[in-house]
């Protein structure tokens, strides 16, 4: 997929998600522009992660429409595997494939899905590893890496599929504080390169510095939305004020 | 926990007491060897052996308990000293006497022969070539089959009870079986199963005897012999045979 092909790679309208009787996402609509970095903040249980996972259908939404790169992914019969190849996802707990080394982790999907030849996939993998600063770990196994290293490898793995969109689900929440920085650095560079990103995070500093737009979610609803300046310096909604007072 | 342990211990002591208080001899027999021993519709253990033993014991004035353990289990129990003797349609043979069986006088005569499935198409030993034959472990039927095995080229499988043996033939697993002729005849008649005895396949046969496995049980054998002579003389023996065989 060429960058810049879709003005709004992500278009969500009136999304709802229920877990049994519980409504965890309530009428969320969001259009993300190409190259935009959107950060979603909010208390635990607000539905932030669930919302993110609905975008690549790791969770099935109950109602509403999601359109990725002009493909309506919520339509039944859509080839979701194909859509997922255009979206990279980075998880809170890294989820590196423990039965293979770093290089294989990176090469598995591109080679298996035949989106690249073995040589070209290897080249891309090495390039991505270089980009996240872990070239020397090419033959290491996941259990030999620190948390920060694992997450950087995870980012590299997602990038090997050359996605248009990157989704980050609390990427630094499981990291020891001293490793948070190295991961945020990589993410900042990605943003600077013009990647379309949605980041669910508790790192307010990152949101303030890098985001084009910040969404505050609570109780499954977007209570306030705006630029980082607006959200952090001039919060309006009482719950947002309350939240910020606790985390900042 | 302590209460439970005490209860278990008490139960165990009671069981041991019951066993040692059990008066008289412990006699064992086969489970299904009609008409010599079998269970009737009410679940009671009946048969020629059962009645003969009862008559002999009454005549000689001794007490006993009779348990149906199964054929090879009975032999094992007597051997181990857990039972005193067995009455189970056991053929008196020299081979067995040499192996330590001590027999009473014979009380019934029987041959072993071959029975086949009605549709198996076996008319004689020659038709057994390459086929499978079923027998019961440790019986004269098994001995007989083993003596013919090499010559006629068949395989033998060993099952634990007579019904299992017949079932194998009926279901087609085996084409034939070797067992005591009167037992097979009785089974075929009473159950109307598609099996038949093959003429001309009977061996010399032997007498059935009550058996013990140790010289210290000789007194029991002597009592049996005395009782047997008695019931033959006074007509009880004939009545028993008529009851199960006469019709």
């Amino acid at each position, binding site marked *: 997929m060429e960058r810049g092909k879709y003005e709004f790679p992500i278009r969500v309208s009136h999304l709802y998600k229920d877990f049994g009787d519980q409504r965890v996402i309530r009428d969320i609509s969001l259009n993300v522009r190409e190259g935009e970095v959107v950060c979603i903040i909010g208390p635990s249980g607000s539905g932030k992660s669930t919302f993110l996972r609905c975008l*690549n259908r*790791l969770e099935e939404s109950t109602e509403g429409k999601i359109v990725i790169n002009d493909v309506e992914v919520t339509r039944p019969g859509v080839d979701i*595997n*194909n*859509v*997922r*190849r255009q*979206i*990279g*996802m980075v*998880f809170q*707990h890294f*989820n*590196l*494939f*423990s*039965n*293979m*080394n770093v290089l*294989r982790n990176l090469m*598995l*999907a591109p080679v*298996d*899905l035949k989106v690249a030849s073995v040589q070209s996939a290897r080249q891309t993998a090495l390039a991505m590893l270089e980009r996240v600063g872990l070239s020397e770990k090419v033959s290491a*196994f996941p259990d030999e890496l620190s948390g920060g290293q694992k997450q950087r490898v*995870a980012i590299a*793995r*997602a990038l090997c*599929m050359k996605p248009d969109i990157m989704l980050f689900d609390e990427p630094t929440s499981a990291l020891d504080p001293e490793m948070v920085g190295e991961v945020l650095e990589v993410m900042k560079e990605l943003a600077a390169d013009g990647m379309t990103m949605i980041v669910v995070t508790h790192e307010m500093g990152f949101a303030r510095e890098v985001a084009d737009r910040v969404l505050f979610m609570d109780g499954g609803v977007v209570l306030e939305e705006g630029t980082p300046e607006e959200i952090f310096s001039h919060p309006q909604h009482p719950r947002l004020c309350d939240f910020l007072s606790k985390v900042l | 926990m302590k209460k439970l342990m005490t209860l278990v211990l008490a139960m165990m002591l009671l069981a041991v007491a019951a066993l040692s208080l059990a008066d008289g001899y412990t006699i064992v027999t086969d489970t299904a060897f009609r008409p010599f021993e079998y269970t009737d519709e009410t679940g009671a253990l009946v048969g020629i052996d059962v009645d003969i033993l009862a008559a002999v014991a009454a005549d000689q004035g001794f007490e006993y308990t009779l348990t149906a353990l199964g054929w*090879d289990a009975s*032999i*094992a129990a007597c*051997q*181990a000293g857990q039972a005193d003797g067995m009455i189970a349609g056991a053929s008196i043979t020299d081979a067995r006497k040499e*192996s*330590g069986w001590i027999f009473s006088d014979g009380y019934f005569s029987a041959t072993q022969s071959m029975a086949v499935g009605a549709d198996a198409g076996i008319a004689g030993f020659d038709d057994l070539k390459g086929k*499978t034959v*079923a027998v019961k*472990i*440790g019986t004269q039927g*098994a001995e007989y089959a083993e003596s013919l095995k090499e010559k006629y080229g068949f395989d033998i*499988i*060993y*099952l*634990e009870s007579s019904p*299992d043996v017949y*079932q*194998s033939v*009926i*279901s*087609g*697993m085996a084409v034939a079986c070797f067992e005591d002729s009167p037992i097979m005849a009785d089974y075929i008649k009473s159950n109307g199963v598609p099996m038949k005895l093959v003429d001309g396949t009977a061996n010399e046969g032997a007498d059935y005897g009550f058996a013990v*496995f140790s010289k210290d049980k000789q007194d029991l054998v002597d009592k049996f012999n005395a009782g047997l002579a008695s019931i033959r003389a006074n007509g009880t023996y004939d009545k028993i045979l008529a009851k199960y065989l006469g019709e």
Partner: protein
Amino acid sequence: MGKIITVYGPLLLQAMGHTLLLALYGLFFACIIGMIVGIMSVLRSRICRVIAGIFVNLIRGVPMIVLAYFVYFGVPYLFNTILNMGGVTLSALQAGTICLSLNCGAYMAEIIRAGIESVPAGQMEAARSLGLPYWRSMQRVVLPQAIRTMIPSIINQFIITLKDTSILSVIGFPELVNTAKNVVSKTFMSFQTWAIVGIMYLIVILILQQAAKAVERRLKNGKRKV
């Protein structure tokens, strides 16, 4: 004691051979059955999970000796006598293999299910999020990890299956226990015969357990399996 070894030794060894052969056949088919049923029990399709569950509970809920009688005597009786379809026969080996395969297969299925479920859900999620289809993800990521955890349990199951072959003595299969009963009926040396048979099983099983430990060690050290 000597007589048993010299006269019946070869027969008993042959019977042990039959025992091992039967156990191997049984285990082979059990692995296949176990794989299929085990994977069915973790699929998203509810029907698959229910069928798998019924199979496992049915087989595990019945003592193997009942299954043996059922397969060997009952099934042909059903076909030949009740349904009058005639000509359905199973040799003791066939019936024994079916019985062992079903029994061991049900336990294998549980081992495999547990193995698959022990792989963190995130592994499958990460694979799917890259665009890999379900079966590819299973094949490349989930199953390789699952198998590593399952191997000790599988070897253990083989040992249990080996001992369970003794149950098949009741259908006349010439394995070690059936043959031992025969030897006892001819020699009347219960104690010696059963002692020897016990030792034979012991030796074979000890060897298997050592092999199991070696495999486990190999997995721990060279655990780089891709």
